[in-house]
C-alpha cells in the first residue's frame, strides 16, 4: 500500500511532478504479475508441447512395437526391428559414471573456492572453470578421440584392469572407446556447471553460521561440514540434479568416445550407446517412415527418462529433508 502512495516531496523535474499527480494505480503490479505468470506458464506449455509432438511423431512406431520398444535390444534399420533397451541402459550408466566422478570433484572444488582458497587463486580458478563450460561439445569430443581415449587405453584402463579385473565391471579386452570413456567425458562436461552452482550456494550460506560454529570451538573441517555443507545440502543436491540433466542429454562428445554399439554389457571397457547419440547418428540418413518414427520414439523415451529421473531426485530430496527434520526434532 505504501509503495503506491506518491511521494509528497515537490520537485522541479516535470516527470516526477507528473508521477506525483497521477492517481495511484495498481495496474502495473497486476500487469507484471500476469506477465510473469505467462512466462512461467510458457515453460510448462513448452514441455507439454514437446512431449505431445514427440508422441505424434512416433505414433506409428508406438503402435507397431508397443511396450516391446522399451524391453528389446535389437536395433536393425534393415529389418526395421527397433528396441531401445541398450540405449536406455547406456544413457543411465554413462550418466551415473559421470555423476560418481563429477560430484565429489565439483563439490570439493566449490568448498575450496568459497572456504579455503586465498583471493589470489580464487578468481583465476573461477574463470578457468567457467572457461571449461564454454568449450564446445564437439571440440571436447575430438580431443576425446585423439587424446583422452588413447591415454585412457594405455595407462588408467590397464591399471583398473589389474586392480579390479576380477569384478565383471573391469574385465574383457580394452579398446579405449567404451562406456567408461563416455562417462568420463560427460563428467568433464558437467563439472563446471555443478561447481559454479555449488559455489554460489556455498557463498549464500550466512557467515553467522560459520561464526557460530567457530565460537563453539569447531575446527575448519568441522565448520565446513556442520555449518556450511549441512546447511547447503538441499541446494547442493539441486546443483547435482542440474548436472544430471545435462549428463542425460549430452550428445556430441559422448558419441565420439562411447563406441556406439547397442549392447548391454557389465564391463565398462565395452562400447555402449546412448539415446541422444543414436538420434544424432542416424536421424539425417533415416529414409523410411518407421525408422524415422523409431528415432522419434527414442526422443520420447529420452524425454521420459529425463523427467522420471528428475522426479525421483525430487522425491529423494523430499525424504532427505523430512528425515533430517525428524532427527532434529528428536534431538
Amino acid at each position, binding site marked *: 500500500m505504501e509503495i503506491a502512495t506518491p511521494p509528497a516531496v515537490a520537485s522541479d523535474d516535470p516527470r516526477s511532478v507528473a508521477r506525483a499527480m497521477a492517481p495511484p494505480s495498481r495496474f502495473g503490479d497486476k500487469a507484471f504479475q500476469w506477465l510473469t505468470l505467462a512466462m512461467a506458464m510458457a515453460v510448462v506449455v513448452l514441455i507439454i508441447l514437446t512431449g505431445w509432438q514427440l508422441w505424434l511423431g512416433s505414433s506409428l512406431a508406438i503402435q507397431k512395437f508397443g511396450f516391446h520398444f522399451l524391453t528389446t535390444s535389437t536395433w536393425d534399420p534393415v529389418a526395421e526391428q527397433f528396441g531401445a533397451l541398450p540405449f536406455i541402459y547406456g544413457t543411465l550408466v554413462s550418466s551415473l559414471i559421470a555423476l560418481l566422478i563429477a560430484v565429489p570433484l565439483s563439490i570439493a572444488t566449490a568448498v575450496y573456492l568459497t572456504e579455503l582458497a586465498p583471493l589470489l587463486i580464487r578468481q583465476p580458478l573461477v574463470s578457468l572453470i567457467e572457461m571449461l563450460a564454454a568449450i564446445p561439445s564437439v571440440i571436447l569430443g575430438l580431443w576425446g578421440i585423439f587424446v583422452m581415449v588413447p591415454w585412457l587405453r594405455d595407462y588408467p584402463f590397464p591399471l583398473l584392469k589389474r586392480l579390479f579385473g576380477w569384478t565383471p565391471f573391469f574385465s574383457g579386452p580394452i579398446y579405449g*572407446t567404451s562406456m567408461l570413456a563416455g562417462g568420463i567425458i560427460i563428467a568433464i562436461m558437467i563439472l563446471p556447471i555443478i561447481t559454479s552452482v555449488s559455489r554460489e550456494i556455498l557463498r549464500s550460506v550466512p557467515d553467522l553460521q560459520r561464526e557460530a560454529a567457530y565460537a563453539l570451538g569447531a575446527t575448519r573441517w568441522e565448520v565446513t561440514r556442520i555449518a556450511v555443507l549441512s546447511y547447503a545440502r538441499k541446494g547442493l543436491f539441486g546443483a547435482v540434479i542440474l548436472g544430471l540433466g545435462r549428463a542425460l542429454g549430452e550428445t556430441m562428445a559422448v558419441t*565420439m568416445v562411447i563406441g556406439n554399439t547397442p549392447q548391454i554389457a557389465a564391463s565398462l571397457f565395452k*562400447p555402449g550407446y546412448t539415446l541422444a547419440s543414436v538420434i544424432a547418428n542416424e536421424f539425417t540418413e533415416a529414409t523410411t517412415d518407421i525408422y524415422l518414427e523409431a528415432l522419434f520414439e527414442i526422443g520420447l523415451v529420452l524425454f521420459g527418462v529425463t523427467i522420471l529421473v528428475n522426479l525421483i531426485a525430487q522425491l529423494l530430496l523430499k525424504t532427505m529433508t523430512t528425515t533430517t527434520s525428524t532427527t532434529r526434532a528428536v534431538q
Partner: protein
Amino acid sequence: MKSLKISRKILAIVLLTGVSATASAQMMINGAGATFPYPIYSKWFDQYAKVDPSVRFNYQSIGSGGGQKQILAQTVDFGASDGPMSDDNLAKAPGKLLHIPTVAGADVVAYNLSGNPALKFDADTIAGIFLGQIKKWNDPKITALNPGVTLPDQEIVVVHRSDGSGTTYIWTDYLSKISPEWKRKVGTNTSVNWPTGIGGKGNEGVAGQIKQSPGALGYVELVYAVQNKMPYAEVKNSSGKFVRPSLESITAALATADIPDDFRFSITNATGPDAYPISGATWLLVYAQQKDATKGRKLVEFLKWAAKDGEKMAKDLQYAPLPENLQQRVLNRIDEIKM
C-alpha cells in the same frame, strides 16, 4: 536525440540493403541432401556464378535422408542422395523423379598395423572380418592373401560408421552382393545392425579410431584416407584381380557396371578387370516436370553445365568423374526435363 540519430542510421542501412537487393535480383535455386558430394557441389555453385551470375544456389548438406524427404515434399528445387531412392519412397513422389548421377567415390579398407605393411583382401575375408568370424590378424585366410607379410597374433578391432551415411550404404551393398550370409543377417542400408565392431561418428571418427587403436581395421572414403595418409588395402574384384582404389579404378567400375535406364544403379562388385569393387555414385534428384518454367530452365542449364564442365573439376577434389558413355546418357536424360 541520440536515439533519433541511431534510428536514422538504421533507416539508411535498411534502405541501402533494400536497394542493393533489388539491383541484383537473383534467382535462388534451393537444394538439400547428401554430405559426401558437398565439397564438389559447392565448388560447382561457386564456379557457376561466373557462368550465369543471375542464378544463385543454396545447398544444405543435411544428409541423403533429408534430401529425399525434402524433394518429395517439394520444399527444395533439387534433392541429393548418396543412394538411389527406394521404390517405396519413389512411389510417394507427386511427379516423376529423375535420378541424375554426378560423381562417384569409393570406400577403402583402412587399417593400423605396426610397420604399415601393404595388404590385400578379397570378398570372403572382408565379409568374414565384418561378420566377426575372422578375429585375428594372422588368420589363415588373411595370411594366404598376403604371402611375405608377417601378420601378428593380434585381435582385429573392427571399426565402422555409427552415423547413417552413404559410405555405409556402399559398404553394406558390397558385402550383401558378395556374401549371402551378410545379406541374410545384416543387409544393405545407410546404417545397419552390425554383428561386430566399434562405431565411430563420421569419417573423422572412424579414421581417428583406426589411427588410435593398434590392430584396427575399418572403412573410410578414399578422399579421407588419401588426405590423412592412412594405409589402405587392395581388394580383389570379381574378375579376380587385385585393384588399388583410385579415381581411375572407380571410373572403371562405373564404365563396366550394368546401368539401368532409370539410373538407380549400384556399381559395387563391378565386373571390369580394372574396376575397384567397393565404389558408389551420388545422385541429384530432380522432377521431370518443372513447376516454375523460368527456374526449371535455369536448373536444366546448370545440370548440363555440371555434366559437361563440372565433371572436369571432379578429379582435383578427389571425386571420380563419370565415364564418357554414361555422361552422354545423363545429358540425354537432362534434356527430357520439361517446363
